[in-house]
């Protein structure tokens, strides 16, 4: 919320999960957190809350949706992006900075402004960010240009791939490129004092592409 306001000077509308409808919007963001305590499977219960039908409709009309962290998990639970997110291979919650590499993708407002050669430094904070799909499915989404980001570097100690994700995948797109799910938190890298500015850079480019 604060991050979006900082970038657009406009206050986004906040929608309660029990609402059943959604006003017309340029972009629906499903943020991180632990919806419903992440009980059963992360994102599973939230993925079935009333508002999600409206989000599905919005996406079906070609609306843009971004799911961050728990939001990504919710998107996979509803099938809006392919694959699933399972428990980190290390079986531990992990909160730290990672290097995020933009990939070549199909046309998408979320990736169109990004430089392929330029890694972004953005924090992760999750327990279930281990992206999984079977090999055929992975080949398919790679072939379609649906892989938006891969893990590319880590700070000081720790492996490059922080959670065991298949093929280092950190973010994926829907097959029309209008829905993005990503594990890292761009909204946590909004200023120099505060995790760097790469998150702001990425969000701003997406917003520019979406709000013409």
């Amino acid at each position, binding site marked *: 919320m604060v991050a979006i306001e900082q970038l657009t000077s406009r206050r986004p509308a906040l929608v309660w999960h029990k609402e059943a409808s959604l006003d017309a919007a340029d972009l629906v963001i499903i943020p991180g*957190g*632990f919806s419903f*305590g992440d009980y059963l499977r992360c994102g599973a219960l939230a993925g079935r809350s009333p508002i999600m039908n409206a989000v599905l409709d919005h996406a079906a009309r070609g609306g843009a949706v971004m799911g961050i962290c728990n939001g990504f998990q919710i998107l996979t639970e509803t099938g809006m992006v392919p694959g699933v997110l399972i428990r980190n291979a290390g079986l*531990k919650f*992990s*909160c*730290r900075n990672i290097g995020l590499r933009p990939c070549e993708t199909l046309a998408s407002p979320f990736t169109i402004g990004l430089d392929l050669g330029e890694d972004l430094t953005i924090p992760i904070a999750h327990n279930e960010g281990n992206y999984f799909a079977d090999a055929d499915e992975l080949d398919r989404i790679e072939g379609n240009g649906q892989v938006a980001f891969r893990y590319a570097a880590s700070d*000081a*100690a720790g492996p490059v791939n922080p959670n065991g994700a298949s093929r280092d995948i950190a973010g994926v797109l829907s097959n029309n490129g209008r829905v993005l799910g990503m594990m890292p938190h761009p909204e946590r890298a909004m200023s120099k004092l*505060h995790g760097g500015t790469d998150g702001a850079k990425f969000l701003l480019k997406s917003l520019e592409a979406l709000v013409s």
Partner: protein
Amino acid sequence: MTSASDVMTFENAVTMGLSRDEWDLINQRLGRTPNLCELGIFSAMWSEHCSYKSSKKWLKTLPIDGPQVIEGPGENAGAVDIGDGLAAIFKIESHNHPSFIEPYQGAATGVGGILRDVFTMGARPVALLNALRFGAAEHEKTRHLVGGVVSGIGGYGNCIGIPTVGGEINFDKSYNGNILVNAMAVGLANSDRIFRSAATGPGNPVIYVGAKTGRDGIHGATMASAEFSDETESKRPTVQVGDPFTGKLLMEACLELMASDTVLSIQDMGAAGLTSSSVEMASKGGLGMEIDLDLVPAREENMSAYELMLSESQERMLMVLKPDATETARAIFNKLDLDFMPIGRVTETGRLILLKDGGTACDIPIGPLVDDAPEYDRPHCDAPIRKQLASSDITNDAPISHMLKTMLGHVDLASRRWIYEQYDSQVMADTIAGPGGDAALVRVHGSKRGLAMSTDCTPRYVEADPKIGGAQAVAEGYRNLSAIGATPLAVTNNLNFGNPEKPEIMTQLVESVLGMGDAARQLDTPVVSGNVSLYNETGGKAIQPCPVIGMVGVIENVDDAVGNCFVAAEQDIFVIGQGDKTNDGWLGVSIYQQHHGDDGIYAPPPLDLVAEQKTGSFVRQQILGGSISAAHDIADGGLVVAIAEMAMRSGFGADIAVPTTGNLHGWAFGEDQARFVVTTADSQELIAAAKEAGIEITKLGMVSDQGELKFGDSDTISITDLNAVFEGCIPALMAG
């Protein structure tokens, strides 16, 4: 009103941890023999955990006043003025025993409990910290306990969405059978909208909100007051399970309700559940309370009055509302699927009356439960006198780099990254400095103001000399906050000790509270809240005494804060503060001494509180004035460890000049107090300022971009090598 079979005997009282005198007193105050429910209530209220019967006399000696203090000890948490009409509200609390039995849930519910203490006061929690003590690294249970506790702390804090920004952890064999898990929460409120717990207005409704009551955690308060034995491990159902999701809903509902003008008083249900919350609310208001237990939302069937009153089910609160506000309040709680139930009313009788199944389950005067709670002046003795360890008795000729490298793999010095990466330290997006720095720094949302905080204690110093150790914990907190540029305001404390019925343990408690008081007075950081955890023993052996200090301070503008990493090559490195005049360094009860396998107890480094205040203030002023670019207080491991830490986290190296006189290892690893390592881009200015302030300042060397530490001309080690040892230790321990 009670059936004959429900009339208690002295034998029953003993099983609940009461003494003969206490039993007699209860009978005398009631003018009759209590029933089970009544006896349970007395035993819980008079337990060490709720009544502070062994520590009260000494807690009264702590300084609790100051212009910054809005609320001192006595409420759910303390409150201090941080400017801009805001108050920081904070407290620390132990969950030692439950965490040993069920590490994940014990730690998780510890976090949940302390968060409730803070939001009960009307504050939105903004940060969590902790202080942990585990047994020897190689002990068979340690790995399992560390893993469970750390994931439990993260499990609750991450899920409820409050960042865990700091803490501390040590290992010592004395905690093999009794770990310490202390959790601290810090919140923010408007200073004129702080909620308190005294019941008001006879006739006003008493409302139960939150989760339902089950049979979990019955008599947790008495368990926390009893020594550990093998039997305790079979006292099964005393462990509660936390539900952070419900905790989050409860927090949001309470804060939403408190934003309106409807809540007269509010109290969380912590230790001893409905018993302590109702009794405390009524007693603080000088009133009585009548509760219909049949109305208490229960999770299980056929719960007795005793069980309902003593259950420690989590995520519950009790409040007194304005009579006409009930329906508005109900709507807020119902929207979030939380129970909301008027269960009784405030009365003028001064009695606690509990109705159940059409009869009276309990009718006792509240006065004796609180005011007549026993207060003991337990015998204590003189603190032991310790010999000073001469540095030359322990040091050798090994190069500094060699010693440094092995010491960084000491479990009490090594990187805590494995632990703190499991905590979401950034959620809510206001964390400016999370774990890894000297103090954590959290921005006041929407402003430049920052709250600084840390938790500290060095048990080996307390064991060696409890008075110095108690004072040192405060001084170290003061140093940590000063090192980032923050002004310390107040402290909360958690007194973890063994069995106070033993004079030598009581001595530790008394002396360290006295030391703590001296330091808090000198450093102007009054004690505004705290917690006492006694009987931390197994098989008759006490833990190393651990009076933890949680300190909170403020910085006007977070942009002025500095970190503890080198920031640029060619900046000069100084040590500020005196240290040992002979240049031999203080190695008694240091990490260096431990590292040599010498577990003798010697005199700890002397502490000069005036010097602490002078150097701390100087460093803070120079940071705020812009002439210090990075600062790190010197603590465990001494000067060279501090320098190495500043280097490892920055990627820069340093060229350090070594002294030509005195004891080299003592200079490098001595733990003399009241000192900081700092860097500056303007040495002239810093030196001049120090001269003027009468502060000792010594140049150590210069930051380099060489990726190595150089000590003198011939002793060099790469930062990569140091990092490997530093970062590798805890992951290796946890991998087994």
